[in-house]
């Protein structure tokens, strides 16, 4: 930039026409645009190749899409309940039958769903607690500033990475095979994934903790666990808590779908109604799942804020 003003400043000061300055500026601009254009073309070509390959590999052709889209709307049409204003709030009649068109009719299996949702929440709670406990224990050897030696650090890091890397649903699939259909497989799968994901976050929190209290405990003759319990845990506990609560929210979502492979919870029912029926039951379960997830999110947010608020006092 400076050479522009220099070469432009001379002639101007002499009262000559400022053509030199304009020339230099134009040259620079042209060079800049040429290099920018080169990159843009390169990016566009790469993008076009990716796009073409993707379309070809996944058979994503317009005619398939065109024939698919009407079917989507057709399908969504079938899962809506036929509610009638007149009977909307009708209860069951004398024989215990629900009136067609009422909410009671739509949610005939409400108590089954409610029980499964309860099970889903229990699964998420158990998995979060177990996973958090594992993450808590592993996060200290997996923090570079606290690990007693590099071997233990390396092993615990890799272990957490593997726990985090395997998708929950794959783990659940394996567990379902090993121990049979039921919520236990889901709990174990989510707990392992939670241990990996939280362990990494916890280890990062540990690495940011002040070394001074740890040094202080070392200087009084404290053992490694004592250094952790007195020097580190009080510093990191609030962060650990809010990460664990956030993970609980994520785990409620996870346990609501992990039943797709038979690992318990409302997901099993969701899978069943979507796969075997295309009527209002699909929407009934979907609404309940979305409601559950939303309510849990709101409650957990409240708790986190209250806890952090109290901590800051």
């Amino acid at each position, binding site marked *: 930039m400076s050479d522009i003003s220099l070469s432009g400043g001379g002639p101007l000061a002499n009262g000559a026409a400022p053509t030199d300055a304009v020339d230099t500026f134009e040259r620079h601009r042209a060079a800049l645009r040429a290099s920018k254009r080169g990159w843009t073309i390169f990016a566009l070509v790469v993008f076009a190749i*990716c*796009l073409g*390959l*993707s*379309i070809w*590999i*996944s*058979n*994503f052709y317009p005619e*398939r*899409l065109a024939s*698919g889209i009407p*079917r*989507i709307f*057709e*399908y*969504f049409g079938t899962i809506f309940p036929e509610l009638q204003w007149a009977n909307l709030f009708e209860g069951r009649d004398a024989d215990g039958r629900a009136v067609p068109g009422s909410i009671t009719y739509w949610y005939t299996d409400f108590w089954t769903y409610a029980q499964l949702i309860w099970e889903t929440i*229990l*699964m998420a*709670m*158990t998995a979060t*607690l*177990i996973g958090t406990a594992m993450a808590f224990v592993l996060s200290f050897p997996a923090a570079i500033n606290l690990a007693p030696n590099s071997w233990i650090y390396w092993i615990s890091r890799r272990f957490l*990475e*593997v726990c985090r*890397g*395997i*998708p929950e*649903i*794959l783990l659940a*699939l*394996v567990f379902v*095979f*090993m*121990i*049979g259909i*039921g*919520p*236990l497989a889901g*709990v*174990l799968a989510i707990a392992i994934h939670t241990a990996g994901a939280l362990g990494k976050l916890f280890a990062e929190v540990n690495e940011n903790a002040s070394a001074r209290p740890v040094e202080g405990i070392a200087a009084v003759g404290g053992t490694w666990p004592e250094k952790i319990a007195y020097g580190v845990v009080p510093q990191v506990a609030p962060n650990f808590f809010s990460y664990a609560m956030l993970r609980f929210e994520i785990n409620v*979502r996870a346990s*609501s*779908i992990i039943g*797709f*492979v038979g690992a*318990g919870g409302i997901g099993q029912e*969701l*899978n069943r109604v*979507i*796969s075997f029926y*295309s009527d209002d039951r*699909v929407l009934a379960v*979907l609404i309940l*799942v*979305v409601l559950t*997830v*939303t309510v849990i999110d709101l409650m957990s947010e409240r708790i986190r804020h209250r806890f952090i608020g109290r901590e800051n006092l």
Partner: protein
Amino acid sequence: MTTAAFDTLTDAHVESARRAHPGAFASRWSTAKRFIPLAVAILYVIASLWYFEFGRLLDASERVWALLRNFVVWRDMDTWAYRQIYVGISQTLAMAFLGTLLGTLGSLVVGFLAAKNVMPFGILRQIVRRFLDILRGIDQLVWGLVFVRAVGLGPLAGVLAIFVSDLGTLSKLYSEAIENIDRKQVEGIRATGAGPLAVIRYGYVPQVLPVFISQSLYFLESNTRSATILGIVGAGGIGMIIIERFRASLYDQVAFVVLNVLVLIFAIDWLSKRVRLWAIGEQGER
């Protein structure tokens, strides 16, 4: 004043200290109270594991060993359909790419519709936002299952599932980015007498484009990861191959495919970390 040694501390010392600073001496109850949350959590975990029939894990050892053995001992490797496996992997990548691309394009429109400072009609904005909440509230895997029912097995359902769930999340992020922009630049463009589309093109787009691009790249990464499991519900890609092999009890092949998936996931994590570092580094130099 010197201090008495710890071992020579008498009950009288303790009593006088207790009288002077009663709060510093924990009662039995307050000590116990510290452990109540921990005890409750442990009791809950034990009770819930009992409810979930934890014993089944102990009974299952035979199957566990059989499965683990099959995972480790690979037989008849020359008969495995490698082509199919790697086509599945590339299908997964393709699904993630197309889904993210469509999601980004859709979010460009919907994001502006949901932004308070662009969308003057409050009712329409609220409708758009609630609609996005619903899209977000339903998991990608559920969308996958729904689209498999609607358009049949295969990657099309996967692309649509990624598109729909991205539309929900990206639109929200985009609209937030739009709402957080600098008002003055927009006023400047408006002051030149530009029409509404020109205001968006020159006032908004230059400010939000970097945010949009980085969000979309991040989503491309996370979608590649989630696309590997979309196939479990039949929505194309490598997940479909995993579940087929699993149902056919070809556990050695499952182990092979899962290993490939893990390598893919770690490679994507690494690559996207590099790309992000590179992007940040370039910005830092500027």
